[in-house]
């Protein structure tokens, strides 16, 4: 066997703390006690040297690959000597953890457990998923897919989807018919005196669950038959709302199983119901494809991003975007994504919204490589819709047309479209504000420059005036000079008339 060079000893191996007595170069007391036969010098096959060789070989063999568990059988072929003795040494080393002591050798399942798919964090506070209440069909979220990228418009996992309403409808409410022992889903008839409940069918059939019960003993309790809205009914409702607007009679007719009031209440319950009824204005191309329930449950990761954007860009409800006002969030806890998108789009203006929708859809289509025509419902460029509250019908018209056109689209695509449009609208808004900021900046710069110029000008004026003064003074001084000169001359004349010599200068005069 190749000798272990000392570099191997510099590697770190794990041994239990109680085995820290172990030394390569020496045989410890513990070992001596355990293997007296080696140290009693009673045989030639059992000597300290032999023991040390056995021990070192086994340990080194283990350390060649600490991840595998060393078996006695695998090493006994390497060593000459009584196999029982070898096994004793082996077991000794094993017991003291000098071999076969590594975390990987434990039989834990934790090491091999697969990490669950990462679930991204929940939605911002203002957005929540609402399942439509009282929906008969269990609302299933699209399969959770681990998605790390938010780039592009990908369908992220609906991680914080919670069917809040299913919690409410707990088995406490599950009523079994007293007679046929089936669930009374919708309406049920409750006996006045006892707690017997009958489902509708049984009531109609006259099975009153007991001889003594008569028809009059039962009263209709709980949700009316109209309260349970299936998906189809909701869809129908929305369609008819768009078609008929305010005409509830017609709507009730088209949604055949529900009464007028039911329709109204249902619509109000829907997240954007009020909106559809015209409480806010403007075309909402983005709202349209989300009319079916699936999209109501959509939450996107983009929302968080959106949220922050919205917070930054929110403005007053009235008037054009104020420059620096940061108003309270539109996104209070009540509104859903759709509503916010709608508000944003309404702020931005119809043409912008259209453009945003167009661009978003174009990008989407490029990505999904499906023809743009499926989105094409013709009325995108129609910008005759004004912002006022009226003209709801045309709104509905256009929306309906659009919706009709978009009917055939897969839900996912519509979701994508709506999200994309929302983002587009938000982006447009951002751009507008950015432009404003820029203009403002330019303005201010201009003012500053102006001021500087004025300063310079006044300085110049000042200097001019100084100059004038200087000139004046110069003249005066000149005059003075002349006078002095004249006086001098007259003095000289006097001097000359009186016959003073040329050499007479003032030094003589005392």
């Amino acid at each position, binding site marked *: 066997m190749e000798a272990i060079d000392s570099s191997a000893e510099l590697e770190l191996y794990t041994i239990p703390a109680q085995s820290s007595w172990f030394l390569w170069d020496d045989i410890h007391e513990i070992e001596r006690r355990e293997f007296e036969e080696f140290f009693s010098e009673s045989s030639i096959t059992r*000597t300290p040297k032999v023991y040390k060789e056995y021990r070192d070989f086994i340990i080194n063999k283990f350390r060649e690959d600490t991840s595998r568990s060393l*078996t006695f*059988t695998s090493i006994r*072929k390497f*060593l*000459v000597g*009584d196999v*029982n*003795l070898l096994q*004793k040494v082996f077991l000794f080393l094993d017991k003291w953890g000098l071999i076969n002591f590594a975390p990987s050798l434990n039989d834990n399942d934790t090491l091999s457990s697969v990490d669950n798919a990462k679930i991204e964090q929940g939605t911002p506070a203002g957005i929540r998923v609402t399942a439509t209440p009282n929906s008969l069909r269990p609302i299933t979220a699209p399969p959770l897919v681990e998605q790390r990228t938010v780039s592009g418009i990908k369908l992220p996992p609906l991680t914080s989807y919670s069917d809040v309403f299913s919690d409410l409808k707990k088995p406490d409410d599950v009523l079994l018919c007293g007679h046929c022992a089936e669930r009374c889903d919708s309406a049920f008839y409750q006996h006045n005196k006892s707690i017997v409940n009958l489902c509708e069918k049984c009531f109609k059939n006259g099975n009153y669950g007991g001889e003594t019960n008569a028809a009059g003993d039962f009263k209709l309790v709980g949700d009316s038959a109209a309260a349970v809205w299936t998906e189809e009914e909701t869809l129908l409702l929305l369609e008819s709302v768009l078609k008929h607007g305010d005409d509830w009679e017609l709507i009730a007719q088209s949604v055949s199983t529900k009464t007028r009031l039911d329709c109204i209440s249902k619509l109000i319950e829907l997240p954007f119901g009020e909106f559809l009824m015209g409480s806010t204005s403007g075309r909402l191309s983005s709202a349209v494809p989300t009319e079916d329930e699936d999209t109501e449950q959509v939450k996107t990761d983009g929302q968080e991003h959106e949220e922050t954007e919205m917070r930054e860009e929110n403005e007053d409800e009235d008037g054009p975007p104020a420059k620096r006002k940061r108003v309270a969030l539109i996104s209070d806890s009540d509104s859903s994504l759709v509503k916010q998108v709608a508000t944003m789009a309404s702020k931005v203006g119809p043409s912008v919204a259209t453009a945003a929708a167009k661009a978003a859809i174009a990008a989407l289509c490029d990505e999904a490589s499906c023809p743009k025509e499926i989105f094409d419902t013709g009325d995108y460029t129609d910008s005759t819709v004004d912002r006022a509250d009226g003209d709801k019908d045309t709104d509905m018209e256009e929306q309906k047309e659009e919706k009709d056109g978009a009917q055939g689209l897969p839900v996912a695509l519509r979701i994508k479209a709506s999200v994309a449009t929302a983002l587009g609208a938000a982006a447009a808004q951002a751009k507008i504000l950015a432009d404003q900021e820029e203009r403002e900046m330019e303005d201010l710069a201009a003012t500053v420059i102006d001021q500087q110029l004025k300063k310079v000008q006044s300085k110049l004026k000042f200097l001019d005036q100084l100059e004038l003064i200087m000139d004046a003074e110069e003249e005066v001084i000149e005059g003075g000079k002349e006078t002095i000169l004249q006086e001098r001359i007259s003095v000289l004349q006097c001097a000359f008339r009186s016959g003073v010599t040329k050499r007479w200068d003032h030094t003589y005069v005392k």
Partner: protein
Amino acid sequence: MKALGSSGWKGPVKFRMPTAENLVPIRLDIQSEGQRYKDAFTWNPSDPDNEVVVFAKRTVKDLKLPSAFITQIAQSIQSQLSDFRAFEGQDMYTGEKIIPIKLDLRVNHTLIKDQFLWDLNNFESDPEEFARTLCKDLGVEDPEVGPAVAFAIREQLYEIAIQSVASARESRLSKKGRRGSDHGSASKASGLSMDLVKLFSFKSSVVRKRKDLDVYEPVVDLLTSEEVDALEAREERHAR
């Protein structure tokens, strides 16, 4: 009568199986009325003798053998036990005796070939433990393999122990009057032991040389049913 010896040569001990448990290997091969009963197991010689009959009866009942087998089984066991006991009174040579033990046995579908060294002087040796470890390390699933291996080891040990008794007797006779230890000759007499002095000397290493590795490596083969049948047929042919 103890022979003089230098260090390393122990005095003879009374005959016994040189294992931790003094168990006798018993082999049975009885044919009667067209049926053949082959078995091999270990027996504790300190068990009372009536246990033999009890065992025979139980075996016949379990294996649904004709009742004629009972007496035959009991007789066979008894005779082997008495053979064993015959040796018990005598001296056994004990010295450094490391012998190679070979395994070459087939148990149901498992074929085992192995060779390893065994120290006859090590009265703490345990064939059962060894067999257990072997099966565990090699992942042998057949639970019959372990006991079969242990039995094979024991049988060989038994053989050698008997031989050592004989050789001890011989050496005693031949060593009359001779001084000095001669354990080398005694060990050589058995012809099986290894040259211990050379092997465990200061200069050499106890790590086996590469060329010998294959010999001492256990080999486990799993046979298919056809192979098993073929082998069995061959064995029977050899037996006759």
